[in-house]
């Protein structure tokens, strides 16, 4: 198919449709309103259904019901709305339902602002809801990648019977870039039949029950361990990351995800021109985090710089990966302020000139 110039939000919506998703439940919130608006317009055209939920709480429970019926479904929101879904997400994970959740992050905490941010990293990767569960978290850096990952998200969700989050910031949502959808696409995972769906029982099998309640602690423990085994499998099989400029020698390794990594890539180009050797490591899956891959990439560097639109969240995973093997620097902006290539270049130059590492454990 030909390339089309699309907003990230629209590309995400179209990608869902291309992935066979016919159901969307969601509530308006900036900066992702174009997703529900796109779905409201497009879904009826493909025989699907758009429902504007009364709230994000309701939306998270509507996708639960739809997923439990075996249909592909997604919701999307932005930070405060995602917070409201935490109970629902925990239920979805506990009941092992395949759903896709899009978070187009804005600055917080509280009402905060509506400009781009990456300060929901902890919530997305460690679990903002209660209990031991994990989301598989995908972080695109371009509109095309958002479209691609969005399609994979449905396959991953179905394969693992687990909620998958596509985590973008306001830039990904609002930016327009050329996007191409493949005419034919093969799922990125084999898709097991959904024998577990609750869609009526004629008595020819035991009833199917979508549920996360296990009153017997031994049974619940087994359930917890089953979930854990699933997450371990994701850790083994689903890590995705990319690097930029690692094919040439580098002194400083920049670690960033999402659109911030884009900004860093421009900075690295500029730095090369100035003769400073620096490379970029970009986690694409935030859970599972590419610990081993990052550690290997950092071996070749003298120091590491983490760049985030937050006061420092992914940096904890970077520390876990490096275990003190390299000094770690941090460059963060908050509140919707963006990081410019210039700011990155400047900090990398300073580090390569010998800037000492800051104190740990802020």
């Amino acid at each position: 198919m030909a390339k089309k110039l699309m907003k990230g939000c629209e590309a995400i919506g179209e990608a869902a449709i291309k992935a066979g998703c016919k159901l969307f439940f969601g509530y308006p919130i900036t900066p992702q309103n174009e997703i529900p608006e796109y779905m409201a317009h497009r879904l009826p055209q493909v025989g699907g259904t758009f429902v504007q939920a009364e709230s994000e709480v309701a939306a998270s429970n509507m996708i639960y019901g739809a997923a439990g019926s075996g249909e592909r479904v997604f919701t999307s929101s932005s930070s405060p709305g995602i917070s409201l879904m935490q109970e629902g997400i925990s239920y979805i994970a506990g009941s092992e339902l395949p759903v896709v959740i899009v978070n187009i992050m804005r600055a917080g905490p509280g009402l905060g602002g509506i400009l781009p941010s990456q300060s929901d990293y902890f919530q997305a990767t460690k679990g903002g809801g209660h209990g031991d569960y994990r989301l598989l978290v995908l972080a695109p850096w371009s509109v095309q990648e958002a479209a691609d990952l969005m399609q994979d998200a449905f396959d991953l969700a179905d394969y693992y019977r687990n909620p998958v989050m596509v985590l973008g910031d306001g830039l990904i949502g609002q930016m327009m870039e050329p996007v191409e959808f493949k005419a034919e696409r093969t799922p990125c995972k084999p898709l097991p039949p959904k024998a577990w769906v609750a869609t009526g029982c004629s008595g020819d099998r035991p009833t199917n029950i979508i549920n996360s309640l296990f009153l017997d602690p031994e049974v619940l423990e087994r359930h917890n361990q089953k979930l854990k085994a699933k997450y371990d499998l994701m850790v083994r099989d689903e890590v995705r990351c990319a690097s930029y400029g690692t094919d040439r020698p580098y002194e400083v390794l920049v670690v960033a995800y999402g659109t911030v990594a884009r900004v860093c890539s421009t900075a690295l180009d500029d730095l090369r021109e100035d003769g400073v050797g620096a490379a970029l490591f970009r986690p694409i899956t935030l859970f599972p985090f590419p610990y081993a891959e990052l550690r290997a990439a950092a071996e070749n560097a003298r120091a590491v710089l983490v760049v985030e639109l937050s006061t420092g969240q992914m940096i904890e995973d970077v520390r876990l990966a490096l275990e003190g093997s390299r000094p770690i620097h941090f460059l963060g902006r908050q509140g919707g302020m963006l990081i410019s290539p210039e700011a990155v270049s400047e900090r990398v130059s300073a580090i390569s000139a010998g800037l000492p590492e800051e104190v740990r454990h802020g």
Partner: protein
Amino acid sequence: MAETVVFARPQALAPVPTHYCPGCTHGVIHRLVAEVVDELGLAHRTVGIAPVGCSVLAYNYFSTDFQEAAHGRAPAVATGVKRARPDLIVFAYQGDGDLASIGMAEIVHCANRGEKITVVFVNNAIYGMTGGQMAPTTLPGQVTTTCPLGRDVSQVGYPIRVAELLATLRTPAFVARAAVHTPLHAVTAKEMLRRAFRYQAEGTCFSLVEVLSTCPTNWGMPPVEATEWVEKNMVPYYPLGVFKTPDGLDRAPRPAPATEG
């Protein structure tokens, strides 16, 4: 002469004992729902939504597929199911804490969207499962663990009448209130439930039947006394009957004449 079974466990009710307290009428309501599902021949395409409350294990007690919803969110889950699979018969079974307290937004909006589902709303004027706290439906003066001196309407207001509240919405619906504290009330309750499921099966409208129920354990009285308590205290505040039918009429209350106030 051949013996015929006149009364027995309906097919749609699983052949297992429940965990309900002795004399708790959740059990009666379960059976009525199951009988209706059987009689209308819907079991093979029925999906129940269990609430969080004493009836949380409803998914074990019906022989239909089930989804267990988060506390108060059964109408949202039911919406998800019905929109995904309009061919299914979807019913949500909810307690009064679940539906009328934490789940108020979901039930109002589900009813207002006119989702073609059926809600069985079990009003026992208390939080059974968590040990007897005040519900939005707790009667004036009724003692619970969180209103140890009795519900004080000057501080926490009057009990909410859910059927009446939902009946004022403009979207067509079937809304009724029934009870099961005597066998004859249960017969009427079943009739209401039958209408509710039939409206759904015919794709007509949203339907909700509020059923007054007992909680002998947390009311602190023997089951028989609890049934009398329903008659004496609940029925006067919660009148039984049909509040709304899907006749397309607009029943919204009108403002008082301008002279008023």
